[in-house]
């Protein structure tokens, strides 16, 4: 995810500063109890401000003292503190967990079926990826959150795609309304053709073959579209399948069209490729667009967000969620649950959404109609197709799904899929790559 990296580097620039947690301490008169929450430090500062206000209001109303800490995902800090707290059985009551962390801490988390049950009753279903990541053995272990949750569909340059590849993305995916005339034509084959055309004019697609999440999420979306699973839901290794071969053959053609430095891409590289105007398309949340508004206005005004390409098995949108878990050792679980339910109320989610310029994606389908995505500009409507609307017919997907999560987390975090692509680029054959992956996966199963 672009943002993680950007803030990571920013935080590193501040040096020691990164090691000091910003602290929000809300004390209300006559507080009856105390509850503490570790929040993801949003890269859009206003998002944090609104969150603080909401928490203050909650504290005031319920006569609870709330201690809220903002923890940056920079240099893995949010992960480290989380693991340390889980080990020490001490720390916050509520912790902001990313992607795989509910599964990584099954034994440490308090089930929150009641909270999520009430939220679902009120707002309807969440998407499948959320369920896969938050629900373990029939129990919700974390409350899906909007803060930090993002999708990584294509984000492309209107003019370059139109002039070089003949794709008028604004017409194909209009910035309002509930139809996308160009949806059916937007397939992985069309994607490959466009990548080729843009590479010819020196505007390669900025797709990375590193091991950070942007690279992994892209590869995951491609694998899923062909029905290719490295490990199936039962936990069997299914590398040697026609579907995987098909993906690798596709990738063999694609990797040659990527920037020379694709293998050393991290989550900031693709952002910079787009902002600097060197790239026609990247897969990312709208953060580079938001940065370009200030640093490269011409690029921003020429950027459009749209759904993922489709393959034989459907259209899969990379989805990277954050969630809030309550530790089993939490001292005030009742207040923690109340706070989480309150924070996920529609009006609160929307207020934060407006503050974060539409970056956060709510987990409930019914909340995808917020005005902010329609009004954000320039160009007007650029964010309209960023959230996963029902008429996009996309499946929210996390790479390596539906493999059993304890294996999937390793496939994801060790970047097995993009590494397979990188090996193709270095000249290895499809069979070599499959053999390598098989060997890796066997060790993941045993680990």
């Amino acid at each position, binding site marked *: 995810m672009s943002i993680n990296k950007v803030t990571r580097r920013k935080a590193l620039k501040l040096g020691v500063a990164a090691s000091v947690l910003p602290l929000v301490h809300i004390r209300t008169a006559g507080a009856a109890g105390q509850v503490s929450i570790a929040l993801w430090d949003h890269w859009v500062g206003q998002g944090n401000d609104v969150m603080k206000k909401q928490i203050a209001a909650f504290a005031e109303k319920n006569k609870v003292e709330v201690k809220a800490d903002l923890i940056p995902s920079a240099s893995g800090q949010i*992960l480290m503190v989380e693991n340390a707290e889980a080990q020490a059985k001490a720390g916050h009551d509520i912790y902001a967990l990313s992607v795989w962390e509910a599964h990584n801490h099954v034994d440490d988390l308090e089930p929150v079926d009641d909270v999520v049950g009430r939220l679902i009753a009120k707002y309807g279903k969440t998407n499948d990826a959320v369920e896969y990541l938050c629900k373990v053995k029939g129990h919700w272990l974390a409350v899906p959150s909007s803060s930090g949750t993002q999708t990584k569909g294509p984000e492309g340059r209107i003019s370059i795609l139109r002039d070089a590849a003949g794709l008028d993305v604004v017409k194909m995916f209009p910035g309002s309304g509930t139809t996308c005339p160009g949806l059916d034509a937007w397939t992985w084959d069309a994607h490959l053709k466009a990548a080729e055309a843009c590479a010819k004019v020196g505007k390669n697609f900025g797709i990375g073959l590193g091991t*950070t999440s942007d690279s992994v999420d892209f590869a995951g979306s491609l694998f899923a579209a062909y029905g290719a699973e490295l490990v199936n839901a039962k936990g069997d290794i299914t590398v040697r399948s026609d579907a995987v071969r098909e993906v690798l053959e596709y990738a063999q053609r694609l990797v040659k069209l990527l920037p020379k*430095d694709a293998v050393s891409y991290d989550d900031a590289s693709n952002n*910079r490729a787009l902002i600097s105007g060197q790239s026609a398309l990247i897969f990312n949340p709208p953060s580079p667009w938001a940065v370009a508004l200030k640093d490269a206005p011409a690029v921003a005004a020429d950027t459009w967000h749209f759904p993922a390409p489709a393959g034989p098995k459907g259209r899969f949108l990379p989805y990277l969620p954050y969630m809030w878990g309550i530790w089993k050792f939490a001292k005030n679980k009742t207040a923690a649950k109340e706070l989480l339910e309150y924070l996920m109320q529609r009006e609160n989610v929307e207020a934060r959404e407006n503050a974060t310029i539409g970056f956060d994606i709510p987990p409930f389908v019914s909340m995808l109609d917020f005005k902010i995505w329609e009004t954000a500009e320039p160009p007007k409507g650029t964010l309209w197709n960023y959230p996963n609307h029902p008429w996009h017919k996309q499946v929210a997907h996390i790479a390596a799904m539906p493999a059993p999560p*304890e294996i999937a987390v*390793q496939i994801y975090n*060790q970047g097995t899929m993009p590494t397979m692509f990188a090996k193709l680029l270095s000249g290895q054959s499809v069979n070599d790559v499959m053999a390598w992956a098989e060997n890796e996966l066997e060790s993941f199963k045993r680990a």
Partner: protein
Amino acid sequence: MADGSSMAISFAPPRRIVRHGSMHRLMRHRSTVALLMCSPLFLLIAGLVVYPAIYAIYLSMLNKNMTEFVGLHNFAFLLKRDTFRLVIFQSCLFAVSAVVLKAFIGFVLAHLMHNIPSGRQRIWRGLLLVPWVIPLALSTLCWWWLFDPSYSAFNYALNVFGFPSVAWLGEAWPARLCMIAVNVWFGTPFFMIMYLAALKSVPEQLYEAAAIDGAGAIQKMLFVTLPMMRNIISITVLFSLIVTFANFDIVRILTNGGPESKTHVFATYAFQVGIQSGNIPLGASVSLFMFPLLAVFAFFVLRNVNRRTKEIAA
């Protein structure tokens, strides 16, 4: 840090000046005082290093969910993995070559510095210490900008002189060399300053004596400088080797282990399997992998240092 070389003489055995009567009580008294003086150090180390270390070793011997004691199974498992064997190779390559280069360049720099009049040394020393003073994470970030393939400042310079661009971090070997280069850049000043201090403490009479015996520059180096600096060289190399084997920042920031895991070192790989993939015991095993080897190495180096110290003191 006026005199780093003096570490060499740090293990002078207790000098018993008087050995009878009431002085005995004083001796005992002195030991007690000494023990008291060391107690803050021991408390700190016991509480914040020894206990965590034992805990970490214990952690490395658990299964993934930390519910079962599995002994050395994690280590056996790691050794069977191709990726991990690659990590061992890369860590050793990184640490050993970086330390050798740091020691060598530091040695040369110390001599160059020793050659110029002491009055002028201050400014040169200051300039050469700059890399060591900037926090490593920060300066690595700057190196990353310099290497950054799509807009590398180094590539820009190469292009100006008509050379083609290099994918600094995009291919295994250039990336490995870049990592080593950054570490050498960062660590050399430390060696330089330690060796310079050692050089200054070599008594001038020894050189004069050697000169009278007809020794040339090379012989002076071999028979005076090196033996006098042996302890400081051992200690700095040992210390640097341990620290370099544990280095995390450089690889994490420059390549995050890529391309194709060909630049992972112990620390970054441990982070990936331990923290990111939720297998803390396996991550602990990765971190501790070099522990036995380094411990044995350290034991022998320190024993030799002690022995030489005694010889000098005797």
